[in-house]
């Protein structure tokens, strides 16, 4: 039963990644593309954190409860894996940086061309290039 729930969670996350990939590639609106990209990043991070989880009871966060050698024994037996969490913090920060940059680019595109639809944008870009020649 636990293995079943575990695989349902993993498969759900993979399905979410597929849906967000569809959103990135097939939606014409740039803002919707950005939203899909955010969902993609967050789901990937959740998947990585899930790999560090331990399916035991009780499970503890990776913080020493008290500063004694006896506490360390039970701590190592119950705590979750800290490495994926540390990596995910790095990934979250970099994902946020990328999002800020993309959001600024989209705002600037909207100010310059008045649209965020890729189809209309390509038409306008062709017009601009034609005007310069």
């Amino acid at each position: 039963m636990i293995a079943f729930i575990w695989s349902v969670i993993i498969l759900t996350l993979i399905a979410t990644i597929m849906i967000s990939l569809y959103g990135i590639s097939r939606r014409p609106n740039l803002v919707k593309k950005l939203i899909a990209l955010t969902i993609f990043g967050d789901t990937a991070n959740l998947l990585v954190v899930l790999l560090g989880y331990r399916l035991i009871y009780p499970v503890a966060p990776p913080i020493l409860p008290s500063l004694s050698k006896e506490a360390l024994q039970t701590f190592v037996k119950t705590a979750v894996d800290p490495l994926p969490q540390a990596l995910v913090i790095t990934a979250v920060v970099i994902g946020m940086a990328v999002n800020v940059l993309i959001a600024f680019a989209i705002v600037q595109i909207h100010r310059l061309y008045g649209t965020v639809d890729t189809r209309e944008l390509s038409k306008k870009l062709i017009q601009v290039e034609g005007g310069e020649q």
Partner: protein
Amino acid sequence: MKKLIPITIIILIIFGLAYVMSGKIEPQENVRALGKFYLENSYFGDYSAKSPEVVTAILWDYRGVDTLFETSVFFLAIIGSLTLFRLNKKQEKEAKERIEKVEELTLVIKTVTKVIVAMILAVSASIALHGHLTPGGGFQGGSALAVAPLLIIAAYSKYALEKQGLDKTRALILRSIGLIGIALIALLPLTKGGFIMQNQPIFPWLGGSLIFYNFFEYLAVGAGFTAVFLLLAIPEKVFKKILGVGE
């Protein structure tokens, strides 16, 4: 109704595959060897980082150089955004002047904003300064801190914030102070024969120099976001006039 069909198919596929898979995979019950090494060594072992919070220990000590470059990526992104919206001195002055009467929100929202800003400042400082004891740390605290100027921009206006002395230049100066602080503390262990970004037991009961990393990162992230928000808050009308794009 039309949307329900693909959703049903996806759910059926997930449960079917999970039923097939469940006999074959083992749920994660043990930590990997590297994770166990970090858990055992973070405070007591031979390779101690002197921090009871294992994630922070990995972040600022074991894999400190990772974090250093992550911070630099983040600030390169902010610099990139500032470059996209670059204004020269005259244009910046123009953007700072009120063009017309700015419409502000109602009394209720303004009063609530005041109280919430005071609470958010306290909460974000708590998140940042306890990064070596509880989940959280510099980046999380800084993100929470950046909510305060964002709320003020939304409820009053960008001009109110600039009138009180927090404009883009000051925010960038604060950010630079934070970055320089991180760099100095990262180089400090080299003078004592350690490796770069090693945790120093300056104040042993505070988890060493972790608290300084967290504090400077808090300052840098909060101020960097504030600069970004101040740029985003320039009204579109003003910006179009500056860029020379037609109405």
